[in-house]
């Protein structure tokens, strides 16, 4: 660790992993509720489990992004963080606000939570993924502003690199687009329209900048390839991500009462969204092939390459599958969407946060550059367990989705929703099994932090000519 203040990243990473476990547990509960409808009812109804599953995902990814930023920015800016104290303070505020919100979801009915938090003063509750009470949303804004101030001042006073600037633009965009969470028009079409300004422009817009810059940072550090080369790729990738991602918002505007031209705009631009992800895959593999050194932290390199591949598959390929308006006409809101959501979030954002944790955690825990061999072996096991089980979750949900589309919307005698759901039960069972394997992978991942802590560091090797292939 080059700068003392980078250590503020550690609690953020630990909290992220902790909430990740919570997210997966609720995912398993909900997965079971797909087939055993009254499982854990009335304590945890399906809608609550779903809310907790998705909200925890967003919150722990935000913890991960913030931790990654706190680790990355001092090193890029070549100076200590502007205010480590502020970073620590914001950590506790965010964690406590997040915990209280989840407890609120679990302990009282949602309507009561709305009353308790005086939602009527500024109604923002009740929208998918943005269910947080208004007070929590305000808290998020405060935390985001303090965070941006802290990071912005650090970058402003230090060295400005393409990586830190792209990251800052991404984080700024994240904060700005979140403000649409406070705009809650009565007109349902408008409501949905602006809701996507948060949801889509986050994951298919500004988050991609965050993803790109963190990936570029880890690749510079682990491969030793010239910064100049990596930054050039970063620029091309984010330019493409923004062009396709911003206008690509239109693929959510097909059937919500917006003008018809969105079917063209949305189809054309979102169909090209896989391109930047494909470039990212080429980029990651190219950089690793051209590496100047063999970094001793092989697990981190594995995560980085895994991110590029899985983001392309999950966000790129699975997104393309149902993005064209004539296809989406049938698949909209079915299990196809769920399949895409799972692999895209895991491949792009879960994996990039785990990449950064994998790279930074050894230094944060006082090691030179890498965990012990035993720990890395375990971590790579967890990589494969989680990644392969996520591929299966996605495939099973895709199977369920295709069948659902056919039975419920495409066949000559369309079945009602719940009848169709009964018919795809087998896929849900298999998805649940894959989910259990994912949880095992996650447990192995956590165990890897506690194994071989006292073992010596693996040695960094020079690149042999043959190794470049």
């Amino acid at each position, binding site marked *: 660790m080059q700068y003392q203040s980078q250590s503020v990243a550690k609690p953020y990473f630990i909290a992220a992993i902790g909430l990740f476990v919570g997210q997966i547990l609720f995912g398993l509960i909900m997965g079971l509720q797909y087939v055993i409808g009254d499982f854990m009812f009335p304590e945890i109804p399906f809608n609550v489990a779903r809310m907790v599953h998705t909200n925890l995902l967003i919150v722990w990814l935000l913890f991960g992004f913030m931790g990654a930023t706190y680790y990355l920015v001092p090193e890029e800016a070549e100076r200590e963080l502007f205010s480590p104290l502020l970073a620590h303070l914001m950590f506790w505020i965010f964690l406590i606000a997040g915990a209280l919100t989840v407890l609120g979801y679990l302990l009282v009915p949602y309507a009561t939570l709305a009353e308790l938090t005086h939602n009527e003063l500024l109604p923002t509750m009740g929208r998918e993924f943005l269910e947080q009470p208004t007070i929590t949303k305000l808290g998020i804004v405060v935390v985001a502003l303090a965070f941006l101030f802290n990071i912005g001042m650090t970058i402003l006073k230090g060295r400005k690199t393409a990586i830190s600037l792209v990251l800052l633009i991404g984080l700024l965009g994240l904060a700005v687009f979140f403000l649409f969470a406070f705009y809650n028009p009565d007109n349902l079409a408008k409501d949905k329209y602006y809701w996507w300004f948060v949801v889509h422009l986050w994951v298919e817009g500004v988050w991609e900048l965050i993803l790109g810059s963190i990936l570029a940072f880890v690749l510079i550090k682990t491969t030793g390839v010239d910064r100049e*080369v990596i930054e050039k790729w970063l620029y*091309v990738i984010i330019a493409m991500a923004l062009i396709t991602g911003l206008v690509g918002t239109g693929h959510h505007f097909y059937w919500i009462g917006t003008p018809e031209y969105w079917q063209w705009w949305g189809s054309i631009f979102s169909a*090209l969204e896989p391109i930047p992800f494909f470039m990212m895959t080429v980029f990651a*593999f*190219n950089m690793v092939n051209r590496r100047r050194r063999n970094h001793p932290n092989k697990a981190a390199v594995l995560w980085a390459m895994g991110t590029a591949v899985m983001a392309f598959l999950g966000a790129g390929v699975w997104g393309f599958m149902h993005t064209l308006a004539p296809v989406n006409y049938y698949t909209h809101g079915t299990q196809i969407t769920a399949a895409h959501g799972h692999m895209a979030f895991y491949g792009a954002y879960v994996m990039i946060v785990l990449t950064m944790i994998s790279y930074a955690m050894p230094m944060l825990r006082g090691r030179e550059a890498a965990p012990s061999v035993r720990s890395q072996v375990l971590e790579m096991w967890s990589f494969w367990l989680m990644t392969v089980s996520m591929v299966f979750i996605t495939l099973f949900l895709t199977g369920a989705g295709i069948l659902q589309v056919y039975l419920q919307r495409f066949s000559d005698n369309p079945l009602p929703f719940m009848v169709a759901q009964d018919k795809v039960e087998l896929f849900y069972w298999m998805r649940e099994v894959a989910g259990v394997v994912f949880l095992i992978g996650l447990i192995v991942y956590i165990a890897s932090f506690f194994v071989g802590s006292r073992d010596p560091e693996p040695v960094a090797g020079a690149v042999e000519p043959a190794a470049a*292939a």
Partner: protein
Amino acid sequence: MSNAKLAIFLPFVESARVVSMNEKETIVVDTASAGVAAPDALVRYPPGDLAIWIFILAELLVFGVFFSSYAFNRMNHVELFNQYQATLDRDAALINTLALLTSSYFVIRGVVAAREGNNRLCAHWIWGAVAMGGVFLVVKSAEYSHHIGAGISLSTNEFYMFYLSLTFFHFMHVILGMVILAAVAVKAGQGGYSREDHVGVETGASYWHMVDLVWLILFPLVYVMR
């Protein structure tokens, strides 16, 4: 495992090796484009940075998809497209075509000047190209204000939807191209290029030619062809 069984795997092994060789080739190509002056900078192909070519190809793909969508849509509404195509100002579009062609010529002169190590001359030509881009923006804006004044929007009909979308998307590219050229011109003005290293000029020039090229397809497609 018997030899015969092994042989089944051989083609796979061989093809795997070919793939890895290709990767090495990519590496070689990439190294040449690392942005540092290569000794053979004058004859290098493609000109400019490899990264801009990846970007150019991706952009051409976007426009290509857009043009095909236009073509397929026109097939179904030939009469509507012909009727409203007549409302467009072809003279303005012709002026714009000439403006972009002239700008591309200026850019070429700029590249030639840079190759000779003449930064001052290079900057003059590139600024000239930026100015012609400005002409394009003014003329196109006048066209837009005419359409908006007539109450035309994306929802008016299929033809206007495509006309406005395509030309506006290209309009944004002209602006981006001008920004890139301006950056090149500023650097040239500061004496930032040399006979050995002028990759930046060629990079900007390549992008600008792409913007011009797209218009050369867009103009006949949307304004002229019946």
